[in-house]
């Protein structure tokens, strides 16, 4: 059934046995890799034999035996069954930016079609990353960046984690724009956030370094972050705590000498520590999609598409500015002479038009 929905998955099995072997080995060693997380980049750059020698331990003999009798055909059909397309680093169409990585993934397992993934990866990808514990403000920013960049034709790359990542993908998908999710473990349908995954399968791509069915380990998150940084021409950090994985992505990007940018936050909010620190160290300031476009294509080379939201009549405009100035609940709006009915109706109208969003606690926030 899976293969029928993903015709490309079978036809696009463009992976050589050597690379497939490598991907399989990573899966087999996944339990051992957690120990060397600090030196992950170097270790992943090792060849098969060295890797096995370094990490195999007691299982080394057995794994060597299994590696010798590795059956690439079986792995291919396995992937096809899971609806996952393959492309390896020996393929000439392997994303150019990703190949810059010393530890470039041997095989990318792609849900959503290899050809589409390659097209998306070629379309000036920008990574939007951030914390899982995002504030509503951070989510709004990620979403509007995702939307703005995608509608300008840029591919939004992120990690499909809760919080900022998902918001960025959703922003891109909301305008049917290009987006790629890089997953830590197998890119099959067993992953979390199934709704989003299905939408990515249909309208974008989800890729992973590891074959389907491999379970998640801690090392896979920084490993995934290196792929995000390498796929993207530029990395934007929206909200990140001091120890957020998004900062690892930013570090990989810097090592690859790709530009890093950040969205400033309130200094008192915990999610602002990461981006503000990056800004202090010279990252580019991002205030909206236009700043990113300027950074990627040069100042003024491209302009972000205008606000797609409908125009407001003057009364709603007044309500919107009242909300922006802190009268952000129906009760507080009622103070300005509105009846409760009118206040609720005005907020609903603004909400429908996409200008305000209800926050937990019944307050309404202006959507940037």
């Amino acid at each position, binding site marked *: 059934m899976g293969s029928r929905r993903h015709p490309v998955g079978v036809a696009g099995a463009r992976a050589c046995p050597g690379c497939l072997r490598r991907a399989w080995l990573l899966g087999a060693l996944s339990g051992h890799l957690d120990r060397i997380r600090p030196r992950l980049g170097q270790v992943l750059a090792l060849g098969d034999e060295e890797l096995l020698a370094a990490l195999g331990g007691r299982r080394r003999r057995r794994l060597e035996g299994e590696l010798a009798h590795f059956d690439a055909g079986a792995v291919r059909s396995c992937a096809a069954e899971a609806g996952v397309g393959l492309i390896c680093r020996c393929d000439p169409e392997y994303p150019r930016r990703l190949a810059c990585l010393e530890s470039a993934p041997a095989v990318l397992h792609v849900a959503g079609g290899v050809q589409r993934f390659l097209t998306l990866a070629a379309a000036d990808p920008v990574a939007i990353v951030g914390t899982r514990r995002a504030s509503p403000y951070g989510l709004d920013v990620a979403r509007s960046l995702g939307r703005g960049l995608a509608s300008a034709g840029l591919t939004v790359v992120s990690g499909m984690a809760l919080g900022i990542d998902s918001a960025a993908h*959703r922003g891109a998908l909301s305008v049917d724009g290009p987006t790629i999710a890089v997953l830590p473990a197998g890119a099959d349908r067993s992953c979390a956030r199934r*709704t989003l995954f299905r939408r990515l399968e249909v309208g974008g791509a989800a890729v992973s370094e590891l074959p389907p069915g491999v379970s998640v380990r801690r090392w896979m998150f920084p490993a995934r972050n290196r792929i995000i940084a390498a796929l993207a021409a530029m990395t934007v950090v929206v909200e990140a705590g001091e120890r957020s994985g998004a900062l690892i992505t930013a570090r990989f990007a810097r090592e690859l000498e790709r530009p890093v940018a950040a969205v400033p936050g309130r200094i008192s*909010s915990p999610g602002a520590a990461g981006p503000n620190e990056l800004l202090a160290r010279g990252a580019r300031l991002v205030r909206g999609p236009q700043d990113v476009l300027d950074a990627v294509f040069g100042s003024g080379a491209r302009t972000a598409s205008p606000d797609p939201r409908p125009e407001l009549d003057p009364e709603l405009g007044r309500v919107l500015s009242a909300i922006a100035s802190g009268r952000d609940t129906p*009760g507080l709006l009622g103070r300005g002479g509105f*009846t409760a009915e009118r206040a*609720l109706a005005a907020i*609903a109208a603004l909400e429908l038009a996409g200008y305000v969003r209800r926050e937990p606690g*019944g307050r309404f926030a202006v959507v940037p």
Partner: protein
Amino acid sequence: MLARLPTFAIDGVHPREVWVEVDIRSGLPAFTIVGLGDTAVRESRDRVRAAIQNSGFEFPQTRITANLAPAFLRKVGPGFDAALALGVLAASGQISANALRTYAVFGELSLSGELRDSPGALAVAEGAYRAGLRRLIVPRERAHEAALVGGLEIVAVSTLRAGAEVVMGAPAPVLPPESSAAQDDGTDPDLADVRGHRAPVLAIKIAAAGGHNLLLEGAPGTGKTMLARRLPSILPAMSREEAVEVTRIHSVAGLHANGLITSRPFRAPHHTISAAGLVGGGLPPRPGEATLANHGVLFLDELSEFQRPSLEALRQPLEDGCVTIVRGQHALVLPTRFMLVAAANPCPCGFAGGGDRCQCGEADLRRHRRRLSGPLLDRMDLLVNVERPDEHDLRSPPVTSSAKARERVADARERQLARLAGTRARCNGELDARLLQRYVRLDTAAERVLGRAYAGGTLSARGRHRVLRVARTLADLEGRERVLVEDVLTALGLRQRSSGETEGEWARAAIP
């Protein structure tokens, strides 16, 4: 000699006729009671013996067998004492067994021979009336309650002796004067006490006018409970049948002493309540809070703290207006026509929206929402956030008073009743998809707004129905037959954001 007289057992909240048969024959002195009684019934032997002797009668020193028929029905409680005692007196020839035939007897005895206050007299009186009996002996405290059933002569006595004398031909004592203290004493919560809270007051008014279930969301101490308590005060007054039903139920549950209950019940069970406590159950089955809230308001504070099974159990009662409890061989149907008002914190810590005080992350919020979501929220047409009123609000005059609101609510209800005549529904809250289509006509502008909300994924299909119901009630409150775009927008402002809807803000159409 054999004596028979009727009394009534209470099965859930309904009376079931029970015949007390007392047989006296020669033999060693013994007093046995058969007929599936509980411990209270078994202990009745000793109370009956002492009461008879202390009332100046003679307790026969022979073999006495008392039977409570039908034998399959479980009899509970001390309410059979008086009937057993009079049965013994009749069987032993101390009073006339013939004269006793037209009486139903109900009440617990004390050792001194007094007839003690016993809950459930109204249910017994209804049973007696339906069984075609003419007179009912009840404890004096329950006189007015029993007298609510017309067409029955109530013999309210305070002792066994007095009861026996009436049976033997003495005139029945006059009913005690009705105490007025229990009636309206002017301290019922009133909307005039509320300052600020414009949107919640509106939501309560809509809930009352359309019979919508309501979810109040807000931080601890903002006044959710205070607001919910005022909902009964603006509901239309109960009809006499409703009042009698409420009185019967509350009397059976031992919550009400005397006279007719005229104000609608408000029940606020603690969140540790079990499913059986909420919808009824146990052995023997007792009415739960849902039944006690019949014709009134069931208020669930801290909704997210309730156990899942308890909330799940509320589905049938909410849907059908009654609950069927099956225990052993027999099923019991209890009425549960209540309005549900629930209160919840906006997030696990309760301080969401209060500046930086809330430290709940998105995952916490998701979990919180998931705990709240489910079948119960589907039945909640209204969600309103309760804000902490500030200085300015506390000094400003109240938005409305209960009397004013009740008038508008009553008008709106009348419009609904007239419109819905001949259908199963009685108010907008009960409109299903078909009735909505028939009775909620939108103008083009309203249709467009709703269509946009639906297409954009802001509304689910069910959410759309909820909005339509509320919009219909808003128009009814304004005395309009047409539902305007303002009504739809206000209803959208009071919709609940279920987790599915917040997820799907972006074109769902993208997913095949």
